């Protein structure tokens, strides 16, 4: 059996020695923080013009995470590339010849990349929160307020899990291009559009991003986003189930298919 610490070390070397890691994670951070800050500043100046329903459910914490709609796409790219470049470069055959225990190989890779994604997610989440609150002026909240810390930590976990979900999906699809071609439109368009269509809403709220983002809301149904049949932790649970399914699917494909 391959030694697990050795495989973890190897996967860490793989991640830190490609430039795509740095630029995808920096993009995830910058986009989330910058877009969140911009929206917070906008909300601060336009607060009085908001519809009454939105003013009633105004959630300063959630507003500061607005940038995640775009920032998570960079996380998707990170997750996809971590796995997908093994296939596109042909490295997968070399890697599996070195570590023929495919379960150890996949889960070491996901563990290393997943922890990194979670760390970057948490840092992003905290920076986005504090910067956003600073720009919200009178409408800001405080990290000590009820449920706020849960939402901020949850926002970081959400970003990390979206990255891990993408790793599982890319392992199933065995291609960076195919994975990005499916995941990017899904998270950016399909999920967003369906969640606004009255009929499709009931299904769309079980999508990984829609369910998972509930954890970032402090005010229930923040910004008049509609009631969901699950709470913040329930939503995170649904996202976790998606992640587990993607990883299991990826593992089964990797185990059964010829490399």
């Amino acid at each position: 059996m391959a030694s697990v610490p050795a495989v973890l070390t190897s996967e860490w070397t793989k991640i830190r020695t490609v430039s795509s890691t740095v630029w995808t994670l920096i993009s995830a951070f910058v986009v989330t923080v910058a877009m969140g800050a911009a929206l917070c500043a906008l909300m601060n100046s336009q607060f009085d013009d908001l519809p009454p329903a939105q003013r009633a459910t105004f959630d300063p914490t959630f507003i500061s995470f607005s940038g995640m709609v775009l920032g998570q796409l960079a996380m998707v790219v990170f997750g996809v590339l971590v796995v997908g470049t093994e296939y596109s470069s042909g490295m997968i055959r070399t890697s599996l010849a070195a570590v023929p225990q495919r379960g150890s190989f996949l889960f070491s890779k996901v563990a290393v990349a997943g922890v990194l994604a979670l760390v970057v997610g948490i840092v992003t989440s905290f920076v986005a929160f504090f910067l956003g609150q600073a720009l919200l002026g009178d409408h800001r909240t405080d990290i000590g307020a009820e449920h706020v810390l849960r939402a901020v930590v949850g926002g970081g976990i959400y970003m990390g899990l979206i990255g891990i979900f993408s790793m599982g999906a890319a392992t199933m699809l065995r291609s960076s291009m195919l994975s990005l071609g499916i995941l990017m439109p899904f998270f950016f368009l399909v999920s967003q559009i369906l969640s606004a269509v009255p009929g499709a809403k009931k299904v769309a709220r079980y999508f990984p991003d829609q369910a998972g983002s509930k954890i970032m809301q402090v005010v229930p149904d923040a910004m008049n986003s509609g009631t969901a049949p699950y709470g913040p932790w329930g939503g995170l649970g649904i996202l976790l189930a998606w992640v587990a399914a993607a990883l299991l699917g990826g593992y089964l494909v990797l185990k059964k298919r010829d490399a």
Partner: protein
Amino acid sequence: MIELDGLTKRFGNKVAVDRLSCRVRPGMVTGFLGPNGAGKSTTMRMMLDLDNPTSGSVRIDGKHYRDLDEPLKHIGALLDAKSMHGGRSAYNNLLCLAQSNRIPESRVAEVLDTVGLTAVAKKKSKGFSLGMGQRLGIAAALLGDPQVLLFDEPVNGLDPEGIHWIRNLMKALAAEGRTIFVSSHLMSEMALTADHLIVIGQGRLLADMSMADFIHQNSRSYVRLRSPQQERLRDVLHEAGLIVVETGGGILEIDGATTEALGELAAQHQIVLHELSAQRASLEDAFMQMTADSVEYHAHSDHVAAPPPAGPQWGDQWNERTGGGPAGTGREV
């Protein structure tokens, strides 16, 4: 030592490898020969547990690949030149492989030096030429100082100096008692490197013998005659009980007679000869003959072959199928 036992791989209805059983022994270079699509690469991927066999098994030093503890220390492989992440430097590509099998980092610089890539160790491998990529792949194979080495078409993309280098490397590694298994579709290349031959065609074992035996069994010698009095010469040869093969262009080929005997025979009948030479069919011809029935991808051409010979001839089937291209009829003198 690599042992294949009834190894079979099916892709849908197509049988890529068909009940292949053989042994690859240490201390020599074993050539794995077959035309394109014969199943060589599939067999090698199954040896490394990358493809799952439909049935049968491969054992490396008595163990299944998956049960090897840190496999790079037992077996190294060069599968194809494109097997590294192009965005990573040569050094780092090798480093992550070394780390996964707990091979000391100092080995990375050593193998880069062995293959002559020290100068570009820090360069991203996507800028490498085919030959440099091949060298990097060989460095990866050597990383764990393994006793068994697999090379899939290692000379592809190498310049003459590189080809010479890899030949000597394989011979030196075999001389150290290692098991060297190298695939090729070029008989001429194998004749220079391999001590033992395993020939496959359409996934089936066609030959498993030493290079010396293969040469002995398959190199046919014959005498070539050319004469302006061809009709008369043919009659005389027939009367002498010799089998004459006509290959066109006024050339007659005779098996089982020496140049001396034929020269004297012609002199007795006062026949003018324009050519009297001893010939030896090349190993390439022998290989083509052996695999002719199993060649999967035939070239088709309207080009008409030489008139059909009177008797059986090496490479007949090949010639018919390919329309007698120069590669099929070329002979060594």
